[in-house]
């Protein structure tokens, strides 16, 4: 399978969680941008981050990293 298109580092530099305005973790494997503060994972489709709360996946307790 081809490598998924990664999010451009220039985007990663300025993106934050739209809900909390806190930093995001980029999970390359799952192609998700993770907001531990909001307990949400925003999907990345073909390298395009979908930063909509209604499209985000709720994180399970075990997935949340404490800062």
């Amino acid at each position, binding site marked *: 399978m081809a490598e998924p*298109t990664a999010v*451009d580092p*220039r*985007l990663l*530099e*300025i*993106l*934050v*969680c*739209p*809900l909390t*305005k806190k*930093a995001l973790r980029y999970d390359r494997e799952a192609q998700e941008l993770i907001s531990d503060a909001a307990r949400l994972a*925003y999907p990345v*489709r*073909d*390298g*395009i*981050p*979908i*930063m*909509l*709360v209604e*499209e985000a996946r709720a994180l399970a307790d075990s997935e949340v990293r404490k800062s």
Partner: protein
Amino acid sequence: MAGSDILVFDRGAVRAHRRRAAAQFAGHDFLFREVALRLVDRLADISRAFPVALDLGARGSVLAETLHGEGVRAARGIATLVEAAPVRAFAHAPLGLVADEEMLPIAPASCDLVLSNLSLHWVNDLPGALLQIRQSLKPDGLFLGAMLGGETLPELRSALAEAEEAVEGGVSPRVSPFADVRDLGGLLQRAGFALPVTDADTIRVTYADAFGLFRDLRGMGETNAVIERRRTALRRATLLRAAEIYQARFAGPDGRIPATFQVVTLTGWAPHESQQKPLRPGSAKARLADALGTTEITTGDKTGPVRPKRV
């Protein structure tokens, strides 16, 4: 939604209209291209560099292409142009993303420039959106945005109202209640922008008939998303009647009908030390009395009883 009492726009409908429009947008994007040109023109006049820019509400690359085509992208030193699109179909890698204008996913103080081409008039919480834009700017960063104003499509508004009254016996809002240009300056100020400026332009186009206008509005993704609109779609009879009224009342000698769009341009800067601002009281270096060639009366001195002025 918690915390907001009045929601004017159905944001789900706004997104659905934009999604539906994306496929044939190129055939109906004249207004976006025209306004992009005007925004880019203004940017050309501001002589400083904006290394990181954000196109908020990007419809594909309309703004990027205009910036490039006019040579302004190079002239203004825009190295990175991030495109925050309202729906997936308008976003392109590598610098595209999908975002809601009411909930910006942009880090504080990360952009030198935020541009917005005809996107903010569908926002319910405009003060909140402007505040988030200001926060996303670095100190001395610029916001330059265009949105449709309150005097947009007056012809359509009156034709639809009259047709609906005649055919259905009642009127519901079919054209958006756009913000008034006078209110927008205050909103910019409240959002913490320095040197806020708003001004309005009119763009008038003509169509063979009202159906041409309807097709364009649909193709632009700019059809009605007002929550208070009647839940049923406009009846065909009403639409036909509106087209007749539009033609009868507004057609020119050539039989074509005009459609007027009011475009309000907003400009504001994120505050910075270097910007002109009023001096602190008491910091004057010259005396007003000297300039006027008179004697100064300090505020401590009584001026005497007030006598009625002789006319």
